[in-house]
């Protein structure tokens, strides 16, 4: 197109209009008319107000329980701080609040309360599971075809919605209390992180806490480590004689929870 190197009037005007909304710059007002009934700054103010309020609304929608936890006033203050710090760069509002856990972890005063970042991370993970990619689901009958000799070589592919999240606080207990409209426990930093597995079962996002042993097996299985080696690894965590049975037990749980999308005897 012509004159792409020099900024057109139209482009300059859009840049100023945007600065007027994002930074409160009034330059663009000189190119805007008063209406028959109202002054231009009030009219332009409709856009200024709508910008922050629409984005904070989207955050309320994505983080219902964090909103409940903080209350209207604190949530909105936090929301506007996030809007200011991280303007949207994606055309789809769906992805606007993706950076919230990270923001809450790094920005004061929120970073002084790690339960906030954890709670936001758990809600984000559940939202992501809700509309994650589809994938086939392995069921128990699908396992029947493998001979006992093939089992040590079995490799597993997690469902696209499955996600592991470690939390340093009791945010999952806070989440459960808020979800069932009970008073949440006092926030607390845990002695060791809680290992959560988040996924979608049919259309419902789910999460549960894993033991250190099961979390290790899940993470390694997701890395492509075959079942035989996983059992050897389990043997280092607890009673070695029961390792294969424990491994089979975890696997059974994953399959009945629709957590796996593929099982094969490797390459």
């Amino acid at each position, binding site marked *: *197109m*012509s004159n792409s190197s020099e900024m*057109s*009037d*139209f*482009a300059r*005007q*859009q*840049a100023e*209009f*945007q600065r007027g*909304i*994002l930074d409160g710059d009034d330059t663009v007002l000189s*190119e*805007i*008319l008063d*209406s*028959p*009934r*109202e002054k*231009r700054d*009030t*009219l*332009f103010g*409709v*856009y200024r107000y*709508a*910008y922050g309020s*629409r*984005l904070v609304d*989207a955050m309320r929608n994505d983080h219902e329980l964090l909103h409940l936890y903080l209350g209207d006033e604190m949530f909105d203050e936090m929301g506007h701080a996030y809007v200011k710090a991280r*303007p*949207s*760069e*994606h*055309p*789809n*509002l*769906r992805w*606007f609040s993706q950076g919230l856990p990270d923001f809450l972890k790094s920005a004061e005063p929120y970073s002084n309360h790690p339960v906030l970042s954890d709670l936001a991370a758990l809600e984000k993970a559940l939202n992501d599971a*809700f*509309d*994650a*990619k*589809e994938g086939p689901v392995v069921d128990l009958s699908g396992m029947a075809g493998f001979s006992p000799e093939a089992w040590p070589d079995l490799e597993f592919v997690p469902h*696209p*919605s499955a996600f592991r999240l470690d939390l340093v606080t009791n945010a999952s207990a806070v989440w459960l209390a808020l979800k069932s409209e009970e008073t949440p426990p006092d926030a607390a930093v845990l002695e060791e992180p809680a290992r959560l597995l988040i996924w*979608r079962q049919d*259309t419902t996002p789910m999460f549960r806490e894993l033991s250190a042993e099961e979390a290790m097996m899940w993470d390694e299985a997701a890395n492509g480590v075959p079942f035989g080696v996983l059992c050897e690894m389990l043997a280092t965590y607890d009673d070695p004689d029961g390792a294969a049975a424990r491994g089979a037990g975890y696997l059974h749980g994953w399959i009945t929870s629709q957590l796996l999308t593929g099982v094969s005897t490797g390459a």
Partner: protein
Amino acid sequence: MNVASRLPDSSAAALADRPMQTAKPPFLGFGLGLRHQHYDEILNGNPDIDWFEVISENYMIPGGQPLRTLDLIRERYPVVMHGVSLSIASTAPPNFEYLQGLKDLARRVEPKWISDHLCWTGVHGKNLHDLLPIPYTSEALDHVVSRVQLVQDFLGRALVLENVSTYVQFNNSEMTEWEFLSELSRRSGCWLLFDINNVYVSAFNHGYDPLTFLNGIPADRVVQFHMAGHSHMGTHIIDTHDHPVCEDVWDLYVAALKRFGRVSTMIERDDNIPPLAELLEEVNRTREIADKVLPAAGTHVG
């Protein structure tokens, strides 16, 4: 060998008017904006709604319940895709990732048409998630015409563009909004979505007669009406789409039917979503009024 000299002159192609010649989209009857609050009631009840309009961005996601539900609804009802992020009037480069996502969704949904708004949503990599106004200048018109042509070529179909509610006017505008829309449609071949509430809101905010707007739009280019509610602030109206359609907008609907004839019409509620039955009453009213105003045209589909 100079390869470039043998290629078509792309800058000239971009500047020349190439109105896309497409058959006018069909009359779909009287529809409703699909909202997730009504999914179960629609799937379990098969309500008497002729068609649904879906917000494209709500389904431009990897998977899960929204897309599965949309698959079921499109098996039973005609569907139209309505976007909010095309940003057709932005001076920033087009977002081709977004356009590809839109095209992929259209392949899945097979919508009767794809619409968005005559507006921009951001520049310099930012997205304000609002339908922002433009000056009605010949520079802006040339720019938007070339963008519409590009998007139509990319999608392989004509676009439908909607007038937005605006709160400000620019002092450098050289024409009216209806002149801009008419020229845009004539030069690019895009169709128009006439939002009757937005005309009412903008007319009040800028102090002109909504009928002047209505009569300034070419009668044969409008393929859809939106009906919605708003919030009156005394000195100006904010287009909140969170109220029932008001009586003044119903009156304007009658005038629109008289000018544009039989046009696919839908109730668009974006916030403060009431039970489906309440919106069905409004859908029925769009049908009843059309039957009364256009008895001979036949407002029933099929």
